[in-house]
Structure formats: C-alpha cells, structure tokens
C-alpha cells in the first residue's frame, strides 16, 4: 500500500531566508562602548568594533554632517559584518543605504546621479502626516478558502467600537497580514488604511474572563470609543530621495506616460532642500542623518571620488562608510597608484578602521554561530575539523560547508554532522586554493594518467588538514 504525502500547509508564517550576514544583530557593545568578545553575532575584531561604536554615537547624535569612514582589511575579516552591525544597531528609524561600488555604473543614469540619489536616500526627514486609520475591536473574522485550494481567498472582518459596528471586505494582502499577526476575535487592532499596516493594541477587557491560553505579555485594553475610522497624525520618516521623486514627477496626465524618474533636476533638489530647512525652522520636520555604506569602494573611479569630496561638504550629507579589501593599487580611471585604490585627498578626509584576520578560537566561534543560524547540529570533532579547514582555506569556504554538510548528514539520516560529512563535502567542493592548484597541475602534468605516486604529490599540493588523505581508486582521486 502506498501512502500519499500530504503537502504541509505553512502559508501563515513564512520562514525567513538566511543570508550571509543574517546572524548579525548589532555591534555587540555594552553601554560604555566596550566590545564583548562574543555578542549579537559578532566575534573578535574588538578594536574595530569599538571604533565603529564611536562612529555610531556620532551618527545617533546627528550633529555632524558629512563624515566619512573607511573600513579596510583582508577579505573575510568582517568588514561588511561591521557595517551590517551598525545598521542593525541604528534601528529601522535611521536610514541606512547599502550599495556596492559597482552598482553605480549604469547606462541609464550617470555615475554622479546614482551617487547623489544614494546620498539622498540616506538622509531621512521625520514629518507629521495625517492618515486614516480604522481602530476597533474584532467581533468576527471569517476567511473562506476556495474549495479547489487555489485562487483568491475571500475574507470578512467585523469591527466594533462602543458606539458602532462595521463589516469590512478583505483583500488578499490584508488576509495574509491578519493571519500573520494572528488576529482573532476579541483583539483590539488598528489598521492604517493607506498602507494596510496592522498593529495589535491588546485584547478587549470584555474578553478578560475567557479561559484562553494567553501569554504573559497579553495586554488588556478598553474597547475604542466613537467612530471606527479616525484621522490620526502619524510621524514617519521619508528619505530626501523620496521627496525628490514625488516632486520631480511630471504633473497631470503626462505622469501616466513617464513611469521612471531617471535623472532628477538639480533645481528640484535645491527647491526641496530649501523647503526642508524651512520646515525644520518651523518645527514641522526633523532631519535624520543616516548612513550610506559603499562596499567594494575601490570599484569607484576618479570622477566618483572627486564627487564624493564635494558631496561630503554639503550640510545635508549623511555619514559615509566605505569598505575595501585592496592594498596599494591603481585608482580606477587613472594610472596612479594609491593606498586602498582611493586618492590621497579623499583618504585624508577619512577615519580609517582596520580589521585583522580572525584567530583560530574566533573562527571556531563564528562557525558555531553560523551553525546555529543555519540550524545545523554539529559534533565537537566535526567542529574542530571545520575550524581547521576555515583556518587553512578561508572562513567563507568553511561557512559554505556548514549547510552542505548538513544536507549530506540529513541524507544519511543522521541528526548531527560528523567528521565524515565534513570530509565528504570537503572532497566534493574545492576551495579557491585547491581549485587553482588543480588547474595548474592539470595543465602541465595530466595528473590522472600517473600512478600512485601522484596521489602523494597531490597530498602535498593540496595542503590537506591533518587526518585527511588522498588515494586513487578506479582512476579517481578519493579523499579519505
């Protein structure tokens, strides 16, 4: 008898994808800006983290415009991680724009325009705006799924205040966010009508007697009074770039034909700047300088660097953080050599934070954090082997082996990654050094036509970690 597998229903809470830096939740500093050895996903790099913390204070303070910081260090020493940590520590209210140096090269837009847009995306304006919100207690929520399993869902939501009651029809997006927030009858919620954002205020007092299983943090609130729909003043942050776009759009029916904004005229920008400073003087708005992070900054060319020099002088410029892994190299667009591939006059304006390679203990710690993040259980020995691999090859390679080893382990029905799983993936996937060595060897000596001695050569060549060795079985190199 065959059993049919029932597909799991899991559309309620989607699992977040795991990115290269998703384990980082902050800079891992205490209140006195002293770095903790392991905290918030950050390991080691104490001096650089402390330096980043000082910069962070400066950004939070918001008084100093147009400072620039360069994070320099070898590949895989956590430059991007520090920048991401700063972004996380700043929170969602401070604009943080990240771009890679090569992103600004486009045929549609000039380099300097792309850079100015990035600069203005990193400047926030907090402004009051009136929006229409619906605030009430949920009486009933009813969601019908079509019998076929596919197609649009239909939903109805009944909300009430102490004075009235209204039935709403729900669209697909609203149904999804309601189920994501786990809204149920008895909750007091607000819905922003324009954006569809739902926030739960708590549970209604009238439901306080229900013997429901409730978390300790469940708050009881009064049922709202008066009308369900209210106009409320909300403060929100928009970037200068967004204001630019709104005001540069062709007005009237012509707007229908010009979807893209393309280049924004400098007059529009000047007008906006004047308006924003007027609002600030009147107390209507507050300027929030954010952070512009340019990764791989050596990819910028001479024109961009001189533009940066100029742009940093404006009082409406964010704090600029750049990262590079280059040493003394040619500045793009010239024949001159310069440290980090950045012209000396710009370097002179920068505060430079250096990162250093990780020690074995730190590598071990990082790999452990990544194992947790990727939900892979690993035995102590396997962890040691992986740390060795990380030290001999690169941290990135070792991190990549975690999820692959996890898969290999799962395929053999194991629950914990063992040394064999690591060995298996180590033989399946070459790292950068082994791969280039292999190419060189392959070119001049046709390794596979030789006999057993070549395996010994290969062992020396490939710098294998202890406990691993290569033998030839059936004309193939096998890692044991």
């Amino acid at each position, binding site marked *: 008898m065959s059993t049919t597998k029932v597909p799991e229903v899991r559309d309620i809470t989607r699992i977040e994808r795991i990115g290269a830096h998703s384990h980082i939740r902050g800079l891992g500093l205490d209140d006195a800006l002293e770095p903790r050895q392991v905290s918030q996903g950050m390991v080691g790099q104490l001096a650089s983290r402390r330096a980043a913390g000082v910069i962070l204070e400066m950004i939070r303070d918001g008084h100093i415009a147009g400072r620039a910081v360069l994070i320099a260090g070898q590949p895989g020493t956590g430059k991007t991680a520090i920048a991401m940590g700063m972004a996380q520590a700043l929170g969602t209210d401070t604009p943080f724009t990240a771009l890679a140096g090569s992103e600004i090269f486009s045929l549609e837009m000039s380099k300097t325009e792309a850079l100015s847009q990035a600069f203005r995306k990193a400047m926030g304006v907090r*402004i009051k705006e009136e929006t229409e919100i619906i605030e009430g207690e949920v009486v009933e929520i009813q969601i019908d799924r079509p019998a076929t399993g596919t197609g649009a869902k239909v939903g109805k939501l009944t909300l009430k205040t102490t*004075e*009235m009651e209204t039935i*709403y029809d729900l669209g*697909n997006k*609203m149904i999804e966010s309601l189920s994501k927030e786990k809204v149920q009858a008895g909750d007091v919620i607000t819905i922003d009508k324009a954006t*569809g954002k739902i926030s739960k205020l708590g549970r209604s007092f009238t439901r306080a007697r229900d013997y429901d299983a409730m978390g300790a943090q469940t708050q009881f609130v009064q049922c709202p009074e008066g009308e369900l729909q209210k106009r409320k003043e909300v403060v929100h942050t928009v970037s200068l770039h967004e204001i630019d776009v*709104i*005001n540069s759009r062709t007005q009237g029916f012509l707007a229908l034909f010009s979807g893209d904004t393309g280049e924004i005229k400098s007059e529009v920008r000047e007008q906006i700047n004047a308006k924003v400073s007027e*609002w600030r003087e009147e107390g209507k708005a507050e300027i929030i300088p954010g952070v512009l992070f340019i990764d791989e900054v050596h990819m910028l060319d001479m024109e961009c660097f001189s533009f940066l020099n100029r742009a940093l002088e404006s009082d409406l410029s964010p704090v600029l953080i750049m990262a590079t892994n280059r040493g003394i190299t040619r500045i793009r667009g010239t024949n001159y050599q310069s440290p980090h591939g950045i012209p000396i006059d710009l370097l002179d304006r920068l505060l430079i934070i250096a990162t250093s390679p990780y020690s074995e203990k730190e590598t071990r710690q990082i790999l452990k954090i990544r194992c947790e993040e990727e939900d892979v259980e690993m035995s102590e020995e396997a962890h040691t082997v992986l740390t060795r691999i990380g030290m001999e090859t690169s941290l990135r390679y070792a991190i990549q082996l975690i999820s692959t080893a996890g898969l290999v382990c799962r395929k053999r029905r194991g629950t914990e990654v063992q040394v064999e799983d690591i060995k298996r993936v180590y033989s399946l996937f070459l790292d950068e050094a082994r791969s280039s060595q292999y190419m060189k060897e392959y070119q001049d000596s046709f390794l596979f036509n030789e006999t057993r001695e070549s395996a010994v050569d290969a062992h020396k060549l490939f710098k294998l970690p202890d406990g691993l060795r290569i033998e030839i079985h059936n004309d193939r190199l096998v890692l044991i």
Partner: protein
Amino acid sequence: MAVQCWEALLKSSKKTALIHDGKRKIHYLFADGKEMAEEYDLTSDDLIVRKWRSKNPLGAPGQWQIEIGEPVAALASVDSEMIKENFSNPIFLRQDTKTTFQWRIRNLPYPKEVFSVSVEPSERCCVVKTSNKKYYKKFGIPDLDRCQLPLDCSVLTFTHANNTLIISYKKPKEILTLEHELLRELKKLKGTGEGDADCKTQ
C-alpha cells in the same frame, strides 16, 4: 466678517467653467494650491457635486475628497488587495436642497426610535447615534466652518424612510445670500461648450 473672507477667497480663485452632460462644472484653484470642483444642474441650478483636492505636505497630489454628492465607487483593481467596507454597511452622503443642508444615510434598516441626532455647538459638529450601537457618525458642516457661523440646535430635523435616514439642517440666511450671489456670478462665467477646455492646472 468671516462670510466676506470666504467670499473674497472664492473671488480671488482661478475659475474654469465647463458645460457638459447637462451640468455646469466649475473648477476653482486657490492660491494655496487647493482645488475645488463643483457641478450644478443646468435646469434646476441644484448643487450636485462639490469636491476638494489638496497636495500633501511632501508635494504629492492627493485624492478628491467629496463634500457633496454621491461617492464614486472606487475602482476595485487597486484597492482589492487591501480592505474596504462591505456594501451592506451604511452609506453616508450629503445632498443639499435649495434651503437646507441635507445628509442621507442609506442601508440603515432600524426603526426610527433607534436614532438620535444632535448638534454639538462646542465641537462644531452633528452626531448621529443609534441605541442598538450599530451606527455612529460625527460630521461637521464645512459651509458654516468656512464662514465661521455658529451651529444652531433648533434647525436640525431628521426623518427615516426606506432604510434611509435623512437629516436636514436649515441654511442660515447668510449662506443663502452667499450661494445666490455665487450662482449669479458663475452664470456670468463664459463656459466653454462640449469638448476640451483649457484647464489652468495642467
């Protein structure tokens, strides 16, 4: 007095008139960027529609806000993803007559005793309440606000028939004279006939 202020504001606005579809359509553009549009019936001179539009503080044009007339059914395509009121809910709209401000609330299938309508002069609004806690509405009278005239409790009446609650508020004589003058002025405006008019806002 404030009636004059509003009158002056109306006079100073840029007006564009158009006669189309049996209606006299007038578009006002005020100095602060606000726009008002009115539609009058050609035969009876009744005001059918009055709506407002203004730019939000960031400079983006807003939606038309209807003050008088039937609400336009929003196109389902854009809003279908979000939330909207069910068609069975009460529909609130204003429909003036020559001598009264009048509001109609449709889809209210309750007996007349359920309703109570009152004027809150301090908050400058009227309040509709239901004793069965099904409907509640606060609304202002923008015409009186614009002319800064006081609200009067004694001139408000309401009736209920065919599932519709009709609330009437007798227009004060200042408003009556103002509206009369305005209509006379508007009739003098050279309305372009059918076809495209040169609109100053575009």
